[in-house]
């Protein structure tokens, strides 16, 4: 929709400069969320995609995903041999309620910064030990994905800070992963999205059912009872309550999906 209060579109800053940040500014990723709701408090948009950061950079250490990498680019990514967990990429893209046409514009960074419980890029990068690079007035800083998301539509960025990229270590990418998602409808908004990684034990990431990503770590392959116990320890008020599913059901589905993942990776 038209954002009528925007008086300036800063289309291609040479380099995003957090120092010039003013109140009423917003970083513009794909704009698929910013343009989907009225934003009467905003005055300027600072465009990031026009910086043309390389979307996906493979190194020996892992994968650097630019904040401006679109979901479509991520979906089309051909992973180096041995990165078993890369099969999560298209699965996570499909978990977005938005269509493949939204993928063509929506960015990974926008998804992370929007910090919705149902943000599939949050689920993906949190599950794969993602570390964010954040640019701010005092220089760059690093933050683990689960720490970026502090609650529904709340993130840990200070005014003027921006997400530059998220790095997924090769070690995590090499591990076998399992993915489960459920929503109130066959192709709907995620009400619970869990990802497991087979380490020496199991790394389980719980998202969508809870207000922010949670990690459950098991040093050895856990029993069904151990997984149940770990899920049971999630406090009741951690479960998200909105029109996309009741908290009680989300909690129940978290138990169910956790067990399915445990069984698949066992």
């Amino acid at each position, binding site marked *: *929709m038209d954002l009528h209060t*925007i*008086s300036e579109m800063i289309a291609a800053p040479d380099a995003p400069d957090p120092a010039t940040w003013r109140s009423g500014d917003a970083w513009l990723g794909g704009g698929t969320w910013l343009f989907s709701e009225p934003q009467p408090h905003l005055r300027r948009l600072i465009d990031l995609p026009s910086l043309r950061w390389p979307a996906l950079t493979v190194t020996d250490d892992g994968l650097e995903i630019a904040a401006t990498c679109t979901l479509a680019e991520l979906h089309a990514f051909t992973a180096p041999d041995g990165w078993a967990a890369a099969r999560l990429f298209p699965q996570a893209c499909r978990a977005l309620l938005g*269509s493949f046409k939204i993928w063509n514009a929506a960015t990974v960074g926008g998804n992370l910064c929007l910090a919705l419980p149902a943000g599939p890029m949050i689920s993906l990068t949190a599950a794969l030990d993602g570390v964010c690079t954040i640019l701010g007035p005092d220089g760059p800083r690093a933050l683990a994905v689960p720490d970026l998301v502090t609650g529904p539509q709340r993130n840990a960025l200070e005014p003027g800070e921006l997400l530059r990229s998220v790095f997924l270590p090769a070690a995590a990418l090499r591990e076998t992963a399992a993915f489960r998602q459920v929503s*109130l409808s066959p192709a*709907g908004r995620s009400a619970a999205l869990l990802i497991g990684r087979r380490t020496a034990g199991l790394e389980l990431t719980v998202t969508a059912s809870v207000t922010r990503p949670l990690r459950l770590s098991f040093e050895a392959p856990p029993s069904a009872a151990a997984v149940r116990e770990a899920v049971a320890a999630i406090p009741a008020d951690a479960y998200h309550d909105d029109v996309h*599913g*009741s908290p009680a059901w989300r909690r129940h*589905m978290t138990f169910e999906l956790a067990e399915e993942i445990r069984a698949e990776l066992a």
Partner: protein
Amino acid sequence: MTYSINGAEVGATPRPGQCLRTFLREQGTFGVRKGCDAGDCGACTVWLDGTPVHSCVTPAFRAQGRDVTTVEGLADGDTLHPVQRDFVEAQGFQCGFCTSGMIMTAAKLTPEQRADLPHALKGNLCRCTGYRAIEDSINGVPHVETPEAGHSAGHNTSAPAARAIVTGKALFTLDLPPDGLLHLKLLRSPHAHARIVAIDTSAALAVPGVHAVFTHEDAPPRLYSSGRHEHMTDDPDDTRVLDDVVRHVGQRVAAVVAETVAAAEEGVRALVVEYEVLPAVFDPELAMRPGAPVIHAKPAAETRIAFPERNTVAEIHGNLGDVAAGFDSADVIYEQIYHTQRVQHAALETHGCVAWVDERGALTVRTSTQVPFLTRQALCAVFNLPPEHVRVLTVRVGGGFGGKQEMLVEDVAALAALRLGRPVQLELTREEQFTGTTSRHPMAIWVRAGAREDGTLTALQLRVVSDTGAYANHAVGVLHHGCGESVAVYRCPNKKVDAYAVYTNTVPAGAFRGYGLSQTVFAIESTMDELARLLHIDPVAFRERNIVRPGDPMVSVSNELDDVEYGSYGLDQCLTLVRDALADSPEAAPGPGWLVGDGVALALINTIPPRGHFAESDLRLLPDGTYQLLVGTTEFGNGTSTVHTQLAATALGTTPERIAIGQSDTALVGHDTGAYGSTGVVVAGRATLLAAQALRRRLQDAAAVLTTLPPDECELTEEGVVCGSGTVLGLPELHRRATEAGLPVQAHASTDGSPRSVAFNVHGFRVAVRPRTGEIRILRSVQAADAGVVLNPMQLVGQIEGGVAQAVGAAVYEEMRIGPDGRVVNPAFRGYHVPQFADVPHTEVLVAKTADSLGPMGAKSMSESPFNPVAPALANAVRDATGVRLTSLPLGRDRVWEALAAAGVTAEDPPGGPVPHAPAGLPEETAVERR
């Protein structure tokens, strides 16, 4: 850098913050539609350098230096793109509002995506079709036929507008902006109930571009109802154009008119309003109690509000026979409270209109309405204008479903246009659709029913509480209709109905497909299912035993005679068709952990609303030998234009292409009650058929006079009148000579909607339910319809599929939630789940073989009614599968899981093992009595 649209460079540059959708529309590519403006519906899909995007969430500047392709740029000259052609051939649309976006998406699908349409199309919503026709379009399955002249009735003729729709050229309401257009934006109430103490407009008026602000001080004092009916007095007068009391969050407070939408919005933000917040009530039961805040302290006699002091708009108390005696003679009694939720029409085109004063000084309003003539009537009343000074018209309307049987935008736009003397446009946002228009009436329905061991119904009793929200538009009619056919379809000597329509401080409810029936049918059909189970009688057999048959009185709350007749009767056939279809179904559980069950429900609907529904048709031969048909009824995807041309073409011995239809404009014909109550064919179509039959006789008579042959030797054909042994008087020649001789080449007919007939729908489902997740999977969906003679099979199937899809939405997914402060919690498609392709089952449509003695060529209505039996059939199937009766809609996975878990139904149930039937796991409020 420049902008290039469909290969042509444009000089304009977008504003900062502008999205590509509005930029493209400003450049004249109106095929780019707005369904949501939020990325959810796909109606705005265009290509950027060949990549499809939702233009409403694409910043316009992104198109700089890239090629934009819209639906207008798809065809190669006159040659349609193959996908456009396939959408014509399969008629993959009804209203056509989603079609541009569907085509622009479908044309870019990869083979893998085509193989996975449920996922590939999740960003394209269609509210009309139920997606099967879209699937056939994408898969290239054609349906359109081109029957011979005089034989189009009964065939799949194409909608006249098909080509315009697939090329994006079909004009919808806001696609013709006049010069000098001003834009109106509304400030809406943040409070559920408040008195407006003061409005400071000075800052708003100071915003550059703002022309005027209108508040309650500028609005006419006259009270009216936004709900429109043939009789103005059907609905209580409780509404003002702008009021000094607001009664729900989202009610209009003030209107700002400005040069641009941006300035109008800025003006709205600059208004300073002082409110005196009043106590509010959100629950209709509480609202009826003494001491509840009175929402409309108005005189009952003048406003026709039954009991303003009890917030009660209307009550019905019907008592036939003796229910107490009926229950005494019952062997089993079942009693239950059902709840139906608030759902939204979600027509893809939002409400909107443009109002202006024409050269003759007449107020003219082009609007998205189902009722142009009744809107004129209302505007005349509100602004005290004579009918000849007001013209209301529609072009193509992007879906209605009852939501546009209301005056929700025209009044305030007219106020502004009359005051300012400039054209004024008001286009509602999707959010405003949810917070400031209408919904289905939420109802709480208590049913008690008794039957004898042999399956005979002995007593049926209802208590219905209908929540009409802050205004009474349609409250009365919906209550009566809801308590009408749902009860009348059962032959039962003892019936008692107590029903209440009640105000609350919530967004108003209004007319909605089914008009009250879908709610009560859910309750009654669920109850009949339980009675059958208590008696161990097959639910279909139980119904066969108790349904009305020709000759039986169709009564619900009164024995008074009305004008409903058995013009035909096919309910028995429908029940048989559905029973046989389900019995033949091989579908079984998709795997372990699923429980399978079947469910059936039926619905009766009178073919026409009561107390008169009027239509006129004017048909004439034109000098070039083609015909012009003028009708009052609106086309909003119901397909009536197609059927009208078929009826006329059949009677005139010609082909539909030779009949140009002009419609839904108060300047064209005298009166038309409107396109509601499924009347487009049975009332308006009958007028067209009568006019065509009269014109046929007139043309034959004229030819007889001109050739001095007896009239019975003159036969109208496609090319002309064949006179005697072979001379053909060509139509252009006939026109010329008849006109010279003063012989009429035009005919006019009107109908009054009485007497009325009855139509039936029976729905059957086989479902699998997974207790572990609460998921309901529809394995088989079949609907049998008694629609009389089918005039256009493809369209009939389309109406039924669309109705079923919408009903599946209301049964499983859709719910407008109201927060503790009375605010709509989910006013967007992101949170209000309109069925996507993936959600809608294929429905097999079966038709009863009947011919109606009242409808045109034996046809009956079939647009609202397919909706009505769907939710109870689904709940009955879930009951069959799980043993649990679900009494509240929607049957979302979370709720189903919760109910099954509470009843102890688990995944561990042996797959294929005995399904628990009867009282196991009934919710608390259930009472079952065995005597």
